[in-house]
């Protein structure tokens, strides 16, 4: 966009060396985010010109040499009126541009991927919908999307208001109890993008991230088939013990693992926990160590979250983390 090279936005651009990022509105990877980025730079350019003009006039007004008999109210009236008209014209223009941008954002696609995202304090439940019940599956805190295919999100909230925001892909939309909101966008490039809850939702609002993995149609299909299946069967003795711990301790009353007796619905579905890159909604990268740390003391890592500390001895914790880390 031409306005990006506008010299007055240069200081901003310099300060903004970190604009490229996995959670940045200025590093778009979908048509929607790209349109919004253009709109942002257009507004920035126009506003910068106005601000500089006003400041220059102010500085001249303050510093100019006063000569007697320069009072000329008629001329001042004319200049002020012109400036007001210019203001009206500019904001009318910006309103039209903004209106057009809104219209251009809507994407309806019969082939759109339907996903329901439900916000919980403080994690995201993600359900891939399908007309056929056996094609429906649930995961958490991670969306996999095929590149180039429009996705249609149904946004719902289980407790308080949350807001779905993945700036690299599109603008945000709130998840509100008692209301059904939707959001559509078409990811344009393969990559990993981060999103974060944008509406204050309580103690762990800061730790309510989600990851969007945009991949080729083939990889997506591979991942989808994997998610449809039940959890991996434990192989080693340690993992088998871990599964028993999970089923017999408090874990099973809140979490679901397909293919085990655990079928809780309060916490995230853990059927393919180890296939997800992070646990606890973006808090820790998934590995056996972080899983053990989390299970051992969730309230220190994420104070106030709804997972209680379950008393386990060292061998139980060890077995449990081995089992969970095996759930690819």
């Amino acid at each position: 966009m031409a306005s990006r090279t506008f010299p007055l936005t240069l200081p901003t651009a310099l300060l903004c060396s970190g604009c490229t990022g996995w959670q940045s509105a200025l590093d778009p990877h979908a048509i929607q985010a790209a349109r919004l980025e253009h709109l942002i730079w257009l507004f920035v350019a126009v506003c910068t010109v106005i601000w500089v003009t006003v400041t220059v006039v102010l500085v001249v007004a303050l510093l100019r040499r006063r000569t007697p008999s320069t009072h000329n109210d008629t001329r001042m009236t004319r200049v002020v009126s012109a400036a007001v008209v210019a203001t009206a014209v500019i904001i009318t223009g910006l309103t039209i541009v903004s209106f057009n941008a809104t219209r251009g954002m809507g994407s309806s696609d019969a082939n759109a991927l339907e996903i329901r995202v439900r916000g919980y304090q403080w994690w995201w439940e993600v359900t891939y919908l399908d007309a056929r019940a056996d094609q429906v599956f649930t995961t958490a805190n991670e969306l996999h999307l095929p590149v180039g295919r429009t996705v249609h999100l149904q946004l719902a909230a289980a407790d308080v208001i949350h807001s779905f925001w993945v700036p690299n892909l599109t603008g945000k939309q709130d998840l509100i109890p008692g209301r059904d909101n939707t959001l559509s966008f078409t990811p344009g490039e393969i990559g990993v993008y981060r999103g974060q809850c944008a509406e204050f939702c309580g103690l762990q609002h800061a730790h309510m991230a989600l990851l969007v993995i945009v991949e080729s149609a083939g990889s997506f299909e591979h991942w989808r088939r994997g998610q449809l299946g039940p959890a991996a069967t434990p192989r080693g003795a340690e993992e088998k013990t871990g599964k028993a711990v999970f089923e017999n301790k408090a874990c099973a009353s809140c979490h679901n693992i397909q293919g085990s007796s655990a079928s809780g619905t309060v916490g995230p579905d853990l059927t393919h926990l180890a296939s997800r890159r992070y646990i606890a909604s973006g808090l820790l990268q998934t590995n056996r160590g972080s899983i053990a740390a989390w299970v051992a003391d969730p309230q220190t890592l994420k104070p106030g979250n709804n997972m209680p500390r379950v008393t386990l001895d060292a061998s139980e914790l060890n077995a449990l983390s081995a089992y969970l880390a095996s759930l690819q």
Partner: protein
Amino acid sequence: MSDSGNPPVSDAQLERPELESRLAATWRTPGGLWGVLSTVDHKIIGRRYIVTAFVFLALGGVLALLMRLQLSSSERRVLSTDWYNQVFTMHGANMMFLFAVPVMEAMAIYLLPLMVGTRNIAFPRLNAFSYWLYLAGGVMLWTAFALNMAPDVGWFAYVPLSGPQFGAGKRADIWAQMITFTEVSALAVAIEIVVTVLKQRAPGMTLQRIPLFVWSMLVTAFLVILAMPTIMIASTSLILDRLVGTHFFNPSEGGDVLLWQHLFWFFGHPEVYIIFLPAVGMVSTLVATFAGRPVFGYLAMVLALISTGVLAFGLWVHHMFVVGLPRVGESFFTISSMSIAIPAGVQVFCWLATLWDGRLSFRVPLLFVIAFLITFVMGGLTGVMVASVPLDTQVHDTYFVVAHFHYVLIGGAVFPLVGAIYYWFPKMSGRLMSERLGRWVVGLLFAGFNLTFFPMHILGLMGMPRRIYTYSPEMHWDTLNLFSSVSATIVAAGFLLFFVDVIRSWRHGPLAPENPWGAATLEWATTSPPPSYNFPRVPVVGSAQPLWDERDSVAVACGLRVDRRELLITSVVSAQPQARDSSPRNSIWPFFAALASTLMLISSIFTPWAMVWGSVPVLITLVGWFWPKGTPEDEG
């Protein structure tokens, strides 16, 4: 003071020295604790209000520094998440409800009667009551904070988070009753302002001769009267949901979560103009005085104030662009939000024209105006950006918005306010503040503010949401946050220096001449600080700039009695004298009434029945307050 027996004494019969001593005897505030608690002098109450509001500003500033410390780098553990949520909620609620709105009304309480040439504000006992109630609300909120039970749901207290199911303990109830305290007091002051401006102006001060600051406060007062009831309904419904088990905001029982947001922002957006419009009036006053000419385009300025006030009620939905409202509605609110740039533009252009044409005197207050213009215009322009629905979907609830509204509120309201304190300080104290320190204060605040808040625009675009107590180093937000946190200390230094200057100058500043800045408005037509009765004789106004056009001899009216408190009632449009009205004497009852109301409101946090038995003491104090005195109300 009694009417029985003695014949009435009018000021027409008296020479100046005797007139002044008799007026002083009639209007004085007695010394001692009784005097402190019972005074109804608008100057004493106004000064109290201003000092209290600045104490809350300092406290809120400390909270801001705590937040900046917590966010200065990723994963700091200065504040726990629970404390952080209390701190940011307290910062917002304190700054909006205990500092910004009260301080603007406080300036009006002190200045308006002087600027319109009357002896006291209308309903002076209500004024005293409003101060005590405001103080009680502030003390309640900060006591709750000290007890680790401050609200933690944001200054906006969105349901369901603040509702009975998710807002545990008494925290959200304290937020809701703090609203009641501050809104009752703000409404009381607004009514006083409207009546003072419309009915107590000096003879001859027709509508087109009202000073712009007075106009701005009149518009503000109407905004308060129209906007505040909404938030009181909202907070009352919330407390009913929490304490009585109603379901106004419970979707599973037919309530609506978004109803809260509509009610809150129908108040919340005008709130911004309730803070900003008085500042606009201050800027107009300062610009006129230091440019040595009336503000260019008086009529345009007044119309801009009024149209801002009207438009303020048509754009609350721009706080709700991402809740999923119908497109058409959103577009309407984009247009209305953007169109408020027109009256704002009118005012900026008129000030620029005035500065262009005037003979400037670069004293500290004018420097604040310059800082204001540069900063506020930027805040206004980012306001145009967030008014665009699609653009807002990226920046809403991010640090971009944090930057935007601090540019508008600090740049647009606090800079003019501090400038106004430098300007009117000699009126209040009889002494000037330091010109040298003042220049440092401007410099530190201006530089510190921009360095602190400009980077937040970029942080917002880089994806940093508001109200997060920490962030991961993977986000690469560390550098800008650290920069912002370090710069915040410059702002703190600026305010510290300002407070030092105020405290030092109050006792040791150089004595101010009668009209130190050569201003045009009536408050400078009496001594500094003014006597309890404001003016020995009520001035008569013949132009919009009485002290410039009638330099040495402002005409005066006579005929008011001096043996009891009387002031002149004039007509709304042309300010023709209509009646002599008695003005209430000092009374302890407003203080007792405020105590009784405090007892009732605080108890109601714990049991709704407090509204029933708590109303008995309130009733008793009101009977005392309004007990007939036997003085005739007014005489034509």
